[in-house]
Protein backbone atom coordinates (compact mmCIF):
# COMPACT_ATOMS: atom_id res chain seq x y z
CA UNK A 1 0.00 0.00 0.00
CA UNK A 2 1.45 3.28 -1.12
CA UNK A 3 2.36 5.82 1.57
CA UNK A 4 1.97 3.07 4.16
CA UNK A 5 4.33 0.15 3.52
CA UNK A 6 7.40 2.32 2.99
CA UNK A 7 6.93 3.66 6.49
CA UNK A 8 6.81 0.15 7.99
CA UNK A 9 10.13 -1.11 6.68
CA UNK A 10 11.80 -3.31 9.34
CA UNK A 11 15.26 -2.82 7.80
CA UNK A 12 14.97 0.94 8.30
CA UNK A 13 13.60 0.31 11.77
CA UNK A 14 16.71 -1.57 12.79
CA UNK A 15 18.98 1.24 11.65
CA UNK A 16 16.92 3.98 13.27
CA UNK A 17 16.82 2.13 16.56
CA UNK A 18 20.60 2.12 16.52
CA UNK A 19 20.61 5.89 16.05
CA UNK A 20 17.99 6.38 18.74
CA UNK A 21 19.96 4.27 21.22
CA UNK A 22 23.11 6.31 20.68
CA UNK A 23 21.31 9.65 20.91
CA UNK A 24 19.21 8.65 23.91
CA UNK A 25 22.34 8.04 25.95
CA UNK A 26 23.55 11.57 25.21
CA UNK A 27 20.17 13.22 25.75
CA UNK A 28 19.51 11.46 29.02
CA UNK A 29 23.03 11.87 30.44
CA UNK A 30 23.05 13.44 33.89
CA UNK A 31 19.40 12.73 34.61
CA UNK A 32 18.37 10.42 37.42
CA UNK A 33 15.43 8.95 35.51
CA UNK A 34 14.63 7.87 31.93
CA UNK A 35 13.39 10.48 29.48
CA UNK A 36 9.59 10.64 29.48
CA UNK A 37 8.02 11.19 26.10
CA UNK A 38 4.24 11.42 25.95
CA UNK A 39 2.17 10.56 22.95
CA UNK A 40 -1.06 12.49 23.27
CA UNK A 41 -2.98 10.72 20.57
CA UNK A 42 -4.74 7.34 20.83
CA UNK A 43 -3.72 6.46 17.29
CA UNK A 44 -0.05 6.71 18.29
CA UNK A 45 -0.71 4.53 21.36
CA UNK A 46 -2.18 1.96 19.03
CA UNK A 47 0.79 1.97 16.65
CA UNK A 48 3.27 1.75 19.52
CA UNK A 49 1.61 -1.34 20.92
CA UNK A 50 0.64 -2.96 17.64
CA UNK A 51 4.23 -2.94 16.35
CA UNK A 52 5.90 -3.67 19.67
CA UNK A 53 7.82 -0.38 19.55
CA UNK A 54 8.06 0.07 23.32
CA UNK A 55 10.27 -2.98 23.77
CA UNK A 56 12.48 -1.93 20.87
CA UNK A 57 13.41 1.39 22.49
CA UNK A 58 16.44 1.72 24.77
CA UNK A 59 15.97 1.94 28.53
CA UNK A 60 16.83 5.65 28.51
CA UNK A 61 13.42 6.33 26.97
CA UNK A 62 10.06 5.74 28.54
CA UNK A 63 6.89 6.32 26.57
CA UNK A 64 4.01 7.77 28.56
CA UNK A 65 0.51 7.38 27.18
CA UNK A 66 -1.60 10.50 27.19
CA UNK A 67 -5.35 11.15 27.15
CA UNK A 68 -5.78 11.40 23.41
CA UNK A 69 -8.50 8.83 23.07
CA UNK A 70 -11.82 10.70 22.75
CA UNK A 71 -13.78 7.49 23.32
CA UNK A 72 -11.93 6.71 26.52
CA UNK A 73 -12.54 10.13 28.06
CA UNK A 74 -16.29 10.20 27.53
CA UNK A 75 -17.85 10.68 30.96
CA UNK A 76 -20.45 8.12 32.05
CA UNK A 77 -23.09 10.83 32.32
CA UNK A 78 -22.74 11.63 28.59
CA UNK A 79 -23.02 7.95 27.72
CA UNK A 80 -26.20 7.79 29.80
CA UNK A 81 -27.52 10.81 27.86
CA UNK A 82 -26.75 9.05 24.61
CA UNK A 83 -28.47 5.87 25.74
CA UNK A 84 -31.51 7.95 26.74
CA UNK A 85 -31.60 9.42 23.22
CA UNK A 86 -31.32 5.96 21.68
CA UNK A 87 -34.22 4.74 23.78
CA UNK A 88 -36.61 7.32 22.33
CA UNK A 89 -38.90 5.28 20.08
CA UNK A 90 -38.65 7.70 17.16
CA UNK A 91 -34.84 7.93 17.27
CA UNK A 92 -32.29 6.02 15.21
CA UNK A 93 -29.01 6.50 17.07
CA UNK A 94 -25.99 6.30 14.79
CA UNK A 95 -22.48 5.96 16.15
CA UNK A 96 -18.90 5.07 15.37
CA UNK A 97 -17.93 1.51 16.29
CA UNK A 98 -15.58 2.48 19.13
CA UNK A 99 -18.34 4.12 21.14
CA UNK A 100 -20.69 1.13 21.16
CA UNK A 101 -19.22 -0.57 24.20
CA UNK A 102 -18.39 2.40 26.46
CA UNK A 103 -20.23 1.68 29.69
CA UNK A 104 -22.63 4.25 31.09
CA UNK A 105 -23.82 4.03 34.68
CA UNK A 106 -26.45 1.42 33.68
CA UNK A 107 -25.52 0.18 30.23
CA UNK A 108 -23.62 0.80 27.02
CA UNK A 109 -25.12 1.58 23.61
CA UNK A 110 -24.39 -2.02 22.67
CA UNK A 111 -26.54 -3.23 25.54
CA UNK A 112 -29.25 -0.69 24.73
CA UNK A 113 -29.30 -2.09 21.20
CA UNK A 114 -29.67 -5.63 22.53
CA UNK A 115 -32.61 -4.39 24.58
CA UNK A 116 -34.35 -3.07 21.50
CA UNK A 117 -33.09 0.48 20.92
CA UNK A 118 -32.40 1.30 17.27
CA UNK A 119 -28.64 1.82 17.44
CA UNK A 120 -26.70 1.57 14.18
CA UNK A 121 -22.99 1.60 13.62
CA UNK A 122 -21.75 3.88 10.84
CA UNK A 123 -18.33 4.49 9.32
CA UNK A 124 -19.05 8.13 8.45
CA UNK A 125 -21.46 10.89 9.55
CA UNK A 126 -22.53 11.04 5.88
CA UNK A 127 -23.86 7.49 6.29
CA UNK A 128 -25.95 8.76 9.22
CA UNK A 129 -27.34 11.46 6.93
CA UNK A 130 -28.20 8.79 4.32
CA UNK A 131 -30.17 6.95 6.97
CA UNK A 132 -32.03 10.19 7.71
CA UNK A 133 -32.92 10.53 4.02
CA UNK A 134 -34.19 6.95 3.94
CA UNK A 135 -36.28 7.27 7.12
CA UNK A 136 -38.05 10.65 7.03
CA UNK A 137 -40.42 9.50 9.76
CA UNK A 138 -37.58 8.98 12.25
CA UNK A 139 -35.11 11.31 13.90
CA UNK A 140 -31.55 10.26 13.16
CA UNK A 141 -29.15 11.34 15.88
CA UNK A 142 -25.42 11.08 15.22
CA UNK A 143 -23.17 10.53 18.24
CA UNK A 144 -20.45 12.96 17.27
CA UNK A 145 -17.15 12.51 19.04
CA UNK A 146 -13.46 12.95 18.39
CA UNK A 147 -10.88 15.72 18.46
CA UNK A 148 -10.43 18.33 15.76
CA UNK A 149 -9.66 15.56 13.23
CA UNK A 150 -13.27 14.48 13.14
CA UNK A 151 -14.95 17.85 13.71
CA UNK A 152 -14.81 18.96 10.06
CA UNK A 153 -16.63 15.82 8.87
CA UNK A 154 -19.40 16.38 11.40
CA UNK A 155 -19.62 20.08 10.53
CA UNK A 156 -19.69 19.44 6.78
CA UNK A 157 -22.42 16.85 7.26
CA UNK A 158 -24.54 19.42 9.12
CA UNK A 159 -23.94 21.92 6.31
CA UNK A 160 -24.97 19.27 3.79
CA UNK A 161 -28.16 18.58 5.77
CA UNK A 162 -28.88 22.30 5.75
CA UNK A 163 -28.37 22.55 1.99
CA UNK A 164 -30.72 19.67 1.30
CA UNK A 165 -33.29 20.84 3.86
CA UNK A 166 -33.09 17.58 5.83
CA UNK A 167 -34.89 18.23 9.11
CA UNK A 168 -34.76 14.82 10.79
CA UNK A 169 -31.02 14.80 11.49
CA UNK A 170 -29.17 16.04 14.58
CA UNK A 171 -25.93 15.64 16.49
CA UNK A 172 -25.22 14.66 20.05
CA UNK A 173 -22.02 16.66 20.17
CA UNK A 174 -19.09 15.45 22.27
CA UNK A 175 -16.24 16.83 20.23
CA UNK A 176 -13.24 17.93 22.29
CA UNK A 177 -10.21 20.08 21.56
CA UNK A 178 -6.58 19.14 21.96
CA UNK A 179 -4.91 22.32 23.19
CA UNK A 180 -6.73 22.62 26.55
CA UNK A 181 -6.04 18.91 26.99
CA UNK A 182 -2.31 19.29 26.54
CA UNK A 183 -2.34 22.39 28.74
CA UNK A 184 -4.11 20.47 31.52
CA UNK A 185 -1.39 17.81 31.29
CA UNK A 186 1.36 20.44 31.39
CA UNK A 187 -0.23 22.14 34.40
CA UNK A 188 -0.33 18.89 36.31
CA UNK A 189 1.73 19.33 39.50
CA UNK A 190 3.22 15.85 39.35
CA UNK A 191 4.25 16.20 35.73
CA UNK A 192 7.60 14.78 34.68
CA UNK A 193 7.48 14.92 30.91
CA UNK A 194 10.40 15.80 28.67
CA UNK A 195 8.70 15.99 25.30
CA UNK A 196 5.59 15.27 23.25
CA UNK A 197 4.75 13.28 20.17
CA UNK A 198 2.20 15.61 18.65
CA UNK A 199 -1.10 14.33 17.22
CA UNK A 200 -0.60 14.02 13.48
CA UNK A 201 -4.17 14.19 12.24
CA UNK A 202 -5.39 16.83 14.67
CA UNK A 203 -2.47 18.92 13.41
CA UNK A 204 -3.57 18.27 9.84
CA UNK A 205 -6.60 20.40 10.76
CA UNK A 206 -5.23 22.97 13.21
CA UNK A 207 -1.67 23.29 11.87
CA UNK A 208 1.49 23.88 13.82
CA UNK A 209 1.03 27.30 15.43
CA UNK A 210 -1.47 26.42 18.19
CA UNK A 211 1.28 24.40 19.89
CA UNK A 212 3.75 27.31 20.15
CA UNK A 213 2.93 27.97 23.81
CA UNK A 214 4.27 24.52 24.70
CA UNK A 215 7.73 25.49 23.50
CA UNK A 216 7.66 29.15 24.52
CA UNK A 217 5.94 28.95 27.89
CA UNK A 218 6.55 25.42 29.09
CA UNK A 219 9.85 24.95 27.27
CA UNK A 220 9.08 21.43 26.10
CA UNK A 221 9.74 20.08 22.60
CA UNK A 222 6.84 18.75 20.55
CA UNK A 223 7.23 16.88 17.27
CA UNK A 224 4.10 16.40 15.16
CA UNK A 225 4.27 12.75 14.17
CA UNK A 226 2.78 10.49 11.54
CA UNK A 227 1.19 7.18 12.46
CA UNK A 228 3.37 4.62 10.81
CA UNK A 229 6.05 3.02 13.00
CA UNK A 230 8.94 4.68 11.14
CA UNK A 231 7.22 8.05 11.59
CA UNK A 232 7.20 7.46 15.32
CA UNK A 233 10.84 6.41 15.42
CA UNK A 234 11.88 9.43 13.40
CA UNK A 235 9.83 11.72 15.65
CA UNK A 236 11.38 10.23 18.79
CA UNK A 237 14.80 10.84 17.27
CA UNK A 238 13.85 14.47 16.56
CA UNK A 239 12.72 14.97 20.19
CA UNK A 240 15.97 13.44 21.45
CA UNK A 241 17.97 15.78 19.19
CA UNK A 242 16.17 18.75 20.68
CA UNK A 243 16.77 17.52 24.20
CA UNK A 244 20.43 16.87 23.58
CA UNK A 245 20.85 20.33 22.12
CA UNK A 246 18.70 21.95 24.83
CA UNK A 247 16.24 23.19 22.27
CA UNK A 248 12.49 23.33 22.72
CA UNK A 249 10.67 23.82 19.45
CA UNK A 250 7.57 22.70 17.62
CA UNK A 251 8.68 20.54 14.70
CA UNK A 252 6.73 18.73 12.02
CA UNK A 253 7.79 15.20 11.04
CA UNK A 254 4.52 14.55 9.20
CA UNK A 255 5.15 17.01 6.36
CA UNK A 256 3.42 14.84 3.76
CA UNK A 257 0.11 15.49 5.54
CA UNK A 258 0.48 18.44 7.93
CA UNK A 259 0.91 21.99 6.71
CA UNK A 260 1.89 24.62 9.25
CA UNK A 261 -1.22 26.69 8.63
CA UNK A 262 -3.60 23.72 8.91
CA UNK A 263 -6.58 23.04 6.65
CA UNK A 264 -8.52 26.16 5.74
CA UNK A 265 -11.71 24.50 4.46
CA UNK A 266 -11.92 22.24 7.49
CA UNK A 267 -11.38 25.11 9.94
CA UNK A 268 -14.05 27.21 8.19
CA UNK A 269 -16.61 24.46 8.46
CA UNK A 270 -15.83 23.97 12.15
CA UNK A 271 -16.06 27.70 12.79
CA UNK A 272 -19.45 27.89 11.06
CA UNK A 273 -21.15 25.10 12.94
CA UNK A 274 -19.48 24.89 16.35
CA UNK A 275 -18.58 27.15 19.25
CA UNK A 276 -16.48 26.50 22.35
CA UNK A 277 -18.16 25.32 25.55
CA UNK A 278 -16.99 26.98 28.77
CA UNK A 279 -16.45 23.64 30.44
CA UNK A 280 -16.51 20.05 29.38
CA UNK A 281 -16.32 17.02 31.63
CA UNK A 282 -13.62 14.41 30.97
CA UNK A 283 -13.70 10.94 32.38
CA UNK A 284 -10.74 10.62 34.73
CA UNK A 285 -9.59 14.24 34.37
CA UNK A 286 -12.58 16.15 35.65
CA UNK A 287 -13.70 19.40 34.07
CA UNK A 288 -11.38 21.15 31.61
CA UNK A 289 -12.06 24.74 30.56
CA UNK A 290 -12.87 25.41 26.91
CA UNK A 291 -12.10 21.83 25.98
CA UNK A 292 -15.39 20.97 24.28
CA UNK A 293 -17.52 22.39 21.50
CA UNK A 294 -21.27 22.60 21.01
CA UNK A 295 -23.51 23.36 18.06
CA UNK A 296 -24.04 27.10 17.47
CA UNK A 297 -27.45 28.70 18.01
CA UNK A 298 -27.81 29.17 14.25
CA UNK A 299 -27.78 25.39 13.80
CA UNK A 300 -29.90 24.60 16.86
CA UNK A 301 -32.23 22.46 14.76
CA UNK A 302 -29.31 20.06 14.29
CA UNK A 303 -28.51 19.86 18.00
CA UNK A 304 -29.97 16.78 19.72
CA UNK A 305 -29.36 18.37 23.13
CA UNK A 306 -31.80 21.15 22.24
CA UNK A 307 -34.28 18.93 20.42
CA UNK A 308 -34.57 16.38 23.19
CA UNK A 309 -34.48 16.54 26.95
CA UNK A 310 -31.67 14.41 28.29
CA UNK A 311 -30.83 13.41 31.89
CA UNK A 312 -27.65 15.54 31.88
CA UNK A 313 -26.39 14.07 35.12
CA UNK A 314 -22.83 14.17 36.29
CA UNK A 315 -21.86 10.63 37.22
CA UNK A 316 -18.70 10.22 39.23
CA UNK A 317 -16.14 7.65 38.19
CA UNK A 318 -16.04 4.52 40.36
CA UNK A 319 -14.01 5.13 43.54
CA UNK A 320 -11.43 2.52 42.65
CA UNK A 321 -10.81 4.09 39.28
CA UNK A 322 -7.32 5.59 38.86
CA UNK A 323 -7.76 6.60 35.23
CA UNK A 324 -6.97 10.22 35.95
CA UNK A 325 -3.49 9.40 37.18
CA UNK A 326 -2.79 7.13 34.23
CA UNK A 327 -4.10 9.74 31.79
CA UNK A 328 -1.80 12.38 33.28
CA UNK A 329 1.13 10.01 32.95
CA UNK A 330 1.80 9.73 36.69
CA UNK A 331 0.77 6.10 37.05
CA UNK A 332 1.45 3.12 34.81
CA UNK A 333 -1.55 0.94 33.90
CA UNK A 334 -0.10 -2.13 35.57
CA UNK A 335 0.30 -0.19 38.82
CA UNK A 336 -3.41 0.63 39.01
CA UNK A 337 -5.01 -1.31 41.85
CA UNK A 338 -7.82 -2.68 39.73
CA UNK A 339 -5.90 -3.30 36.50
CA UNK A 340 -6.54 -6.79 35.20
CA UNK A 341 -8.70 -7.74 38.18
CA UNK A 342 -11.99 -5.88 38.45
CA UNK A 343 -11.09 -3.74 35.47
CA UNK A 344 -10.59 -5.77 32.28
CA UNK A 345 -11.62 -5.25 28.64
CA UNK A 346 -14.71 -7.45 29.18
CA UNK A 347 -15.71 -5.53 32.29
CA UNK A 348 -14.15 -2.07 31.99
CA UNK A 349 -14.40 0.09 35.10
CA UNK A 350 -12.67 3.09 33.65
CA UNK A 351 -12.15 4.98 30.48
CA UNK A 352 -8.76 3.58 29.55
CA UNK A 353 -9.90 -0.03 29.46
CA UNK A 354 -12.83 0.70 27.17
CA UNK A 355 -11.35 1.35 23.75
CA UNK A 356 -8.46 -0.47 22.07
CA UNK A 357 -6.49 2.78 22.09
CA UNK A 358 -6.87 3.20 25.83
CA UNK A 359 -3.50 2.64 27.44
CA UNK A 360 -4.86 0.04 29.83
CA UNK A 361 -6.67 -1.95 27.16
CA UNK A 362 -3.54 -1.84 25.01
CA UNK A 363 -1.34 -3.02 27.90
CA UNK A 364 -3.83 -5.76 28.71
CA UNK A 365 -4.24 -7.05 25.17
CA UNK A 366 -0.86 -6.53 23.65
CA UNK A 367 0.98 -7.13 26.87
CA UNK A 368 4.44 -6.21 27.87
CA UNK A 369 7.14 -8.59 26.84
CA UNK A 370 10.38 -8.65 28.76
CA UNK A 371 12.48 -11.55 27.44
CA UNK A 372 10.39 -14.55 28.45
CA UNK A 373 8.39 -12.89 31.15
CA UNK A 374 5.06 -11.25 30.73
CA UNK A 375 4.51 -8.06 32.68
CA UNK A 376 0.81 -7.45 32.18
Amino acid at each position, binding site marked *: MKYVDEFRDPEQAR*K*WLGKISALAKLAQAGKDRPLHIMEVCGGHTHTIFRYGIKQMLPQEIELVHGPGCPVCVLPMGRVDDCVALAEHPEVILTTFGDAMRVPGSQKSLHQAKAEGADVRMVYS*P*TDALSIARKHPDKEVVFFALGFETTMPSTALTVL*QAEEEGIGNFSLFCNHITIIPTIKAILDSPDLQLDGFLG*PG*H*VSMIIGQHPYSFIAKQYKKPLVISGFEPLDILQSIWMILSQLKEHRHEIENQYGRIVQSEGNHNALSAIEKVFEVREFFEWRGLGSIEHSGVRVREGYARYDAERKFSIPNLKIADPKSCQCGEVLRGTLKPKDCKVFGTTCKPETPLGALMVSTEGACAAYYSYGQIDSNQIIS
Partner: protein
Amino acid sequence: MCLGIPGKIIEITSTENKLARVDVAGVKRQINIACIVDDDHPPESCVGDWVLVHVGFAMVRINEEEATRTLELLRKMGEMQDEIKAMQKSEEDNS
Protein backbone atom coordinates in the same frame (compact mmCIF):
# COMPACT_ATOMS: atom_id res chain seq x y z
CA MET B 1 -10.02 10.05 15.92
CA CYS B 2 -6.72 9.57 14.22
CA LEU B 3 -7.40 6.73 11.83
CA GLY B 4 -6.65 8.05 8.37
CA ILE B 5 -5.57 5.98 5.39
CA PRO B 6 -4.06 7.08 2.06
CA GLY B 7 -6.23 6.45 -1.00
CA LYS B 8 -6.41 7.49 -4.65
CA ILE B 9 -9.38 9.39 -6.08
CA ILE B 10 -10.54 7.49 -9.15
CA GLU B 11 -13.64 9.42 -10.20
CA ILE B 12 -15.85 12.38 -9.30
CA THR B 13 -19.40 11.22 -8.61
CA SER B 14 -20.98 14.62 -7.95
CA THR B 15 -19.35 17.98 -8.61
CA GLU B 16 -22.24 19.80 -6.95
CA ASN B 17 -22.12 17.82 -3.72
CA LYS B 18 -18.34 17.43 -3.85
CA LEU B 19 -18.40 13.65 -3.85
CA ALA B 20 -15.81 11.29 -5.30
CA ARG B 21 -14.90 7.63 -5.33
CA VAL B 22 -11.63 6.65 -3.67
CA ASP B 23 -9.60 3.46 -4.03
CA VAL B 24 -7.74 2.11 -0.99
CA ALA B 25 -5.79 -1.03 -1.95
CA GLY B 26 -8.61 -2.08 -4.25
CA VAL B 27 -11.45 -1.28 -1.84
CA LYS B 28 -13.61 1.56 -3.07
CA ARG B 29 -15.95 4.00 -1.35
CA GLN B 30 -17.69 7.26 -1.92
CA ILE B 31 -16.07 10.12 -0.03
CA ASN B 32 -16.73 13.79 0.46
CA ILE B 33 -13.97 16.03 -0.95
CA ALA B 34 -15.13 19.40 0.43
CA CYS B 35 -11.92 19.76 2.47
CA ILE B 36 -9.62 19.55 -0.52
CA VAL B 37 -11.42 21.58 -3.18
CA ASP B 38 -11.21 25.31 -3.79
CA ASP B 39 -10.92 27.72 -6.72
CA ASP B 40 -7.45 26.42 -7.57
CA HIS B 41 -8.49 22.80 -7.21
CA PRO B 42 -12.03 22.25 -8.52
CA PRO B 43 -13.54 18.76 -8.10
CA GLU B 44 -12.68 17.55 -11.62
CA SER B 45 -8.99 18.24 -11.03
CA CYS B 46 -8.89 15.83 -8.10
CA VAL B 47 -8.99 12.64 -10.13
CA GLY B 48 -5.71 10.84 -9.60
CA ASP B 49 -4.92 12.72 -6.38
CA TRP B 50 -3.69 10.80 -3.37
CA VAL B 51 -5.59 11.89 -0.28
CA LEU B 52 -5.87 10.99 3.37
CA VAL B 53 -9.27 9.39 4.02
CA HIS B 54 -10.90 9.73 7.43
CA VAL B 55 -14.51 8.73 8.23
CA GLY B 56 -15.62 9.10 4.64
CA PHE B 57 -13.92 12.44 3.94
CA ALA B 58 -10.78 13.33 2.02
CA MET B 59 -9.04 15.50 4.59
CA VAL B 60 -5.92 16.61 2.73
CA ARG B 61 -4.03 16.00 -0.46
CA ILE B 62 -0.89 13.99 0.29
CA ASN B 63 2.16 16.05 -0.51
CA GLU B 64 4.11 13.65 -2.75
CA GLU B 65 7.28 15.75 -2.55
CA GLU B 66 7.21 15.78 1.22
CA ALA B 67 6.55 12.04 1.32
CA THR B 68 9.56 11.42 -0.90
CA ARG B 69 11.65 13.78 1.17
CA THR B 70 10.75 12.00 4.41
CA LEU B 71 11.50 8.60 2.90
CA GLU B 72 14.82 9.87 1.56
CA LEU B 73 15.74 11.24 4.95
CA LEU B 74 14.79 7.98 6.60
CA ARG B 75 16.89 6.06 4.13
CA LYS B 76 19.90 8.40 4.25
CA MET B 77 20.02 8.51 8.02
CA GLY B 78 19.74 4.75 8.02
CA GLU B 79 22.67 4.52 5.63
CA MET B 80 24.69 6.92 7.76
CA GLN B 81 24.11 4.60 10.66
CA ASP B 82 25.47 1.72 8.60
CA GLU B 83 28.51 3.80 7.68
CA ILE B 84 29.12 4.77 11.29
CA LYS B 85 28.90 1.15 12.33
CA ALA B 86 31.25 0.12 9.54
CA MET B 87 33.72 2.83 10.56
CA GLN B 88 33.55 1.75 14.18
CA LYS B 89 34.12 -1.83 13.23
CA SER B 90 37.15 -1.04 11.05
CA GLU B 91 38.61 1.03 13.91
CA GLU B 92 38.16 -1.87 16.27
CA ASP B 93 39.71 -4.27 13.77
CA ASN B 94 42.72 -2.03 13.27
CA SER B 95 43.39 -1.24 16.90
